[in-house]
Every structure is written in structure tokens, then in C-alpha cells.
């Protein structure tokens, strides 16, 4: 029983974090077909943003999330200005952006290493205490992370489905030429999408590192997990990313509780690969009609 509740609460906590961090990738792929390998860099930027605001400026702990969002937005802006705007819609965009975003991450990690230092910092976005109800005992921190993640995902869904920006994003994602011909300011939409993705990545960086630590390479592992979550869910599908987040979190925690921590990721990857063998576009991916 204790094992089961342990697995269950870990799954929910981990799944929420995965969800928060993978929806940003899904948003970028779904709207502008961009595989953002700088996602890890944005996560780290967000984590350091929180540290800067709370530890640096001495503001209350909860402003850390806002700090992460602002830093992430700046990161997304930088990514747009330095790379995306120059090559979007040009030859080999999909491939070039993969390598360019990798280069972007290298630069970000290097900058942090050189300017701030490689030492491991504590994420100040933390609350103490536990919530106890019978046999169930959940840390306030876990509850906080789950609530923030849920709120973020909900807000993103609202933006995509209820706002004017969301309408434009969907227009761009369906047919970029048609969108342009119909007067959609494509570059402006991409700019806003990048900033939005930056905000989400940054905030998820704060949430992610609140249970671990902040260091220059802290974004890599979450990037890899978010990528795996997104391919399992179907690249570009936000509902897919959400479902895959909890499925993978459940699998990973179960494996970690039973086989050992080390095997969590390898086993989930194996399962994802096997799923993809049968469903090559993921669980919720668009099953394209194969036409020439």
C-alpha cells in the first residue's frame, strides 16, 4: 500500500513536471515545425532567472516563478532574433534549426559557466511542510509544483483555443502560405509563439529544479525527457504531450521503485521505441495519408 501510494504520488508529481516542460516543445513543433533543442537552455535560463530574482534581489520566494518566466521570455526572444527569423521558411529550415538550437544551448551553457560559475545552487522556489490525510502524505512542495504545472498547461490551452493569438497560431500551423496570403503577420506570430514557448520553458525550469538543483547543465536531462514525451504523444500534439507525460512518469517511477533508479530512463525509452514501431507518429500524432 505504501509502495502504491508512493508510486502514485511520484507519478503525479513527475507527470505534472513533464507536462509543464513538454508542452512548450509541442507548441513550437505544432505551430512552426521547429524541433527546439534549445529547450534545455531555456529551462536553465528560467531556473537561473528565479535564483536571480529571489536570492539575488531578495524578493519573496514565490516571485521566483515570475523571474523564471521573464528570463525564459528573454531567452525565447533571443532565439527568435538570433536564429529563427533569419531562416524560417527557407531551405532546410527543419534540419538547420536543430543544429542551430543545439549551438544556442552550447553558448548558453558556456555563458553561465563563465559568467556565473559552475557551482551548484539551490532553487529558492520552495515551501516547507507536508499535507497529511490518513495514509496519504504529500509535501507542500509537490502540491505547489503540480498546481503550477496544471495552471500553466491550462493557461496555454486557453491561449491556443480562446485568444486571437491562438487563432493566428493555428492558422500558421495549418498552412503557412494560406495564412500569409490572408494577411496573417507570420513573422509577428512566430515571434509571439517563441516568447510564449520561452515563458513556459522558463517557468518549467523553475518547477523542475525546485526538486533538484540549479547548475549550468541542468536543462539537458529535462530536454531529453521532454523530447521522448513529445514523440510518444505525437510531435506537436499538446493533448498527446499531456497524456504521454503521465504515462511515462508512471512507467518511470514504477521501474525506479522496482528495478532501481538507473533503469528508469532506459526502460521508458525502450517502451517508447516499441510503441513507435507500431504507431510511427506517436499516440496522438497526425496519421498522415501517405500520398506522394
Amino acid at each position, binding site marked *: 500500500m505504501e509502495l502504491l501510494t508512493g508510486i502514485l504520488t511520484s507519478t503525479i508529481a513527475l507527470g505534472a513536471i513533464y507536462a509543464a516542460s513538454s508542452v512548450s516543445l509541442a507548441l513550437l*513543433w505544432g505551430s512552426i515545425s521547429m*524541433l527546439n533543442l534549445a529547450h534545455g537552455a531555456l529551462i536553465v535560463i528560467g531556473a537561473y532567472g528565479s535564483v536571480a530574482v529571489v536570492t539575488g534581489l531578495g524578493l519573496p520566494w514565490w516571485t521566483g516563478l515570475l523571474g523564471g518566466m521573464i528570463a525564459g521570455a528573454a531567452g525565447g526572444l533571443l532565439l527568435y532574433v*538570433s*536564429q529563427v527569423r*533569419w*531562416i524560417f521558411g*527557407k*531551405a*532546410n529550415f*527543419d*534540419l*538547420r534549426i*536543430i*543544429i*542551430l538550437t*543545439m*549551438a*544556442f*544551448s*552550447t*553558448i548558453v551553457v*558556456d*555563458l553561465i*559557466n*563563465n559568467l556565473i560559475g559552475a557551482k551548484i545552487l539551490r532553487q529558492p522556489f520552495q515551501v516547507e511542510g507536508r499535507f497529511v490525510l490518513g495514509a496519504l502524505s504529500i509535501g507542500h512542495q509537490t502540491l505547489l509544483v503540480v498546481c503550477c504545472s496544471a495552471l500553466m498547461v491550462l493557461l496555454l490551452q486557453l491561449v491556443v483555443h480562446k485568444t486571437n493569438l491562438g487563432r493566428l497560431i493555428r492558422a500558421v500551423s495549418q498552412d503557412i502560405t494560406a495564412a500569409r496570403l490572408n494577411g496573417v503577420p507570420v513573422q509577428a506570430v512566430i515571434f509571439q509563439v517563441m516568447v510564449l514557448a520561452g515563458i513556459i520553458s522558463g517557468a518549467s525550469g523553475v518547477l523542475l529544479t525546485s526538486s533538484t538543483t540549479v547548475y549550468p547543465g541542468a536543462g*539537458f536531462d529535462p530536454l*531529453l525527457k521532454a*523530447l*521522448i514525451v*513529445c*514523440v510518444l504523444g505525437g*510531435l506537436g500534439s499538446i493533448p498527446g504531450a499531456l497524456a504521454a507525460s503521465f504515462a511515462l512518469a508512471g512507467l518511470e517511477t514504477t521501474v525506479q521503485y522496482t528495478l532501481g533508479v*538507473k533503469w528508469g*530512463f*532506459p526502460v521508458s*525509452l525502450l517502451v*517508447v*521505441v516499441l510503441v*513507435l*514501431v507500431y504507431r*510511427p*507518429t*506517436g499516440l496522438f500524432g497526425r496519421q498522415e495519408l*501517405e*500520398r*506522394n
Partner: protein
Amino acid sequence: MRSMKSRDLLILLLFVGVLSLLPALGLSRYVLGQITLFILWAAVVSQWNLVFGVAGILSIGHMALFAVGGYATALMGLYFGMSLWWTLPVAALAGLLMSLVMAFATFRLRGAYVVVVTLAIAMTVYQLLVTDVACFRQTQSVCYSFSGGARGLSRFGDFGFRELLGYSSAPLGNFYLSLIMLALSILVAIMVVYSPYGQAFKAMRDNEVCAASRGIEIRKYQAIVFAVSGVFTGLSGGVYAGVIGTFGPQVLELPTLLFLLSMMVVGGRGTIWGPVVGTIVLALIDEGFRDLAAWRNTAYAAVLSIILLTLPEGLMGGFASLRKWALSPRKEG
């Protein structure tokens, strides 16, 4: 097509000939070592290019094939005391097996899905290596794990050039062995690209549905291109381990991946000489930034970004457009 093949074979002969004369310039030990290293990288990238560039399968986890080859050589040298020459076939076999794993995992996947899954496989290998801390062998007070963990392996033997040529000339042996590896790698690439196999790979890349309708069995040729590339990439890994003398999980880290991937893309993927040109250019850039120390990666990544932002088809594509522009008749005034 035949004349193109002869042309490329001739270039290969000249290229290897020129490289083989380099030691006569009286290069320092450091420079010769760096050249040897980049020659091996070029051998890897030429093989990676068969999968990534020629067949259009966007596998970016290719360093995993290299890593298993290197580990095969290092582990067998370490635990069985085998001459590293005898471990090379095993390195090639290890590369082959790993490449078939990649091929199986990506059979039905396309585009970004291939990128993600291959990257994830390589990173899983990396994670399994660095988290391998269980005590396997004890030397005096120090305990080593089976794979050497994050530190990697060392002192597993070499190719015997020191005994054969003496201490001061041993690097020459390593240099020429690496050069042979590169020549072999490019030769295989040329033979493949200009054979029906290469045509089938390109056909798959250009239009998969059409290729299947013209009788090309897609999965079979996906597996073949992975297998060929796996054998020679694994072999390169084995040679690398013996030449460098240490082998660790660092070859799987992101900076190495980015470095090698950009050699291919900066040069021009899908062409025979693109990877070689890319390696030369990036080697020069990398050495040029040596003095920048901590800022080296940043400078390197920045230059890489500029090249990628300006040249969509890489340097070879850039040359081609430049030549076209220079040869095309221009309007007066």
C-alpha cells in the same frame, strides 16, 4: 556516373597522397596528434554522412556506433590483454549490432521522430556508462567499474607502434593507421554512392513512396545503409581507442555530437567531399580558437551558427552556387 566515380577516386588518391607527406614537414608532436584526431573524425563523419546525407535518415545518435566500437576495443584490450589489432573486427561487429538497433528503432519513423529517437538511444548509452559505478576490479586502493564509468578506460594497450618504431616515431604509426582508416572510409563511401546501393539510398531520400513503387525495398536498404555505416564507424571507434589510448563517455556528449554533426552539415551533407571539407574547416576554426580557452565553445558555436544561417546547403552547396554565379553570363551595366 562512371566518370564522376573515377574523378572522386582520383581526388581520394591525391588527397591521401598529400596527407601522407604531411609528417615530412617536421610537425610538432602536438600538431601531428591533432591532425591524426581530425583524420579520424573525418572517417567517422564520412560514414555518418551515408546514413544522414545520402539516405536522408536523420540519425543524430551516430556517435553511439562509434562508442560501442571504441569500448569493444578498450574492454577486450583491458580484460583479455588482446593485441588491439585483433579487437578491431570485434569493434566493427559491435558497430554493426548497434547500427541494427538504430535501424530497427527507426524503420517506420520519419524526420524529427528519427532525430529524437536516435539522440535518445545515444544518450541512454551515455547514461548507462556514467552511472556504471559498481565495483568490478580492484587495483591497490582504487576500485574501477566494468566500463570505467564517467572516467572511461585507459591503459588497455595500443597498436604496438612504440615497440615497432620507437618512442619518438610512434605517433607516425598512429598517424598512418588513421590515414588508412580515413582512406578506407572514403573509398567505401565512393563505392557505395556510385553503386546501385547508393542510387537506392538517394531514391529513398528523394521520394520514398516512389522508390518503393519502383521496386526498392525501403526497410532492406535502410538496414543496409545503417549496417555499412555501422561497420566502418565501429571500426573507426576501435582505431580511435587504440590511437588516443583512452576511451570514455565524452565521445557521446553533446559538444562532441554538435562538433561532428556540424562537420557534415557545414561541409554539405550527401556529397562525398562535403564531410571532408567540413572537417578541415572546423578543425582550423577549432584550433584558431584554442587561445580563447573558456570561451572556445561559444566562439565555435557562434561561427557555426553564422555558417548555417547563411549557407543552407553547406560550403559545398555554397561553392556550387558561387561557380554557377561566376560562370553564368551577366547583363552589362
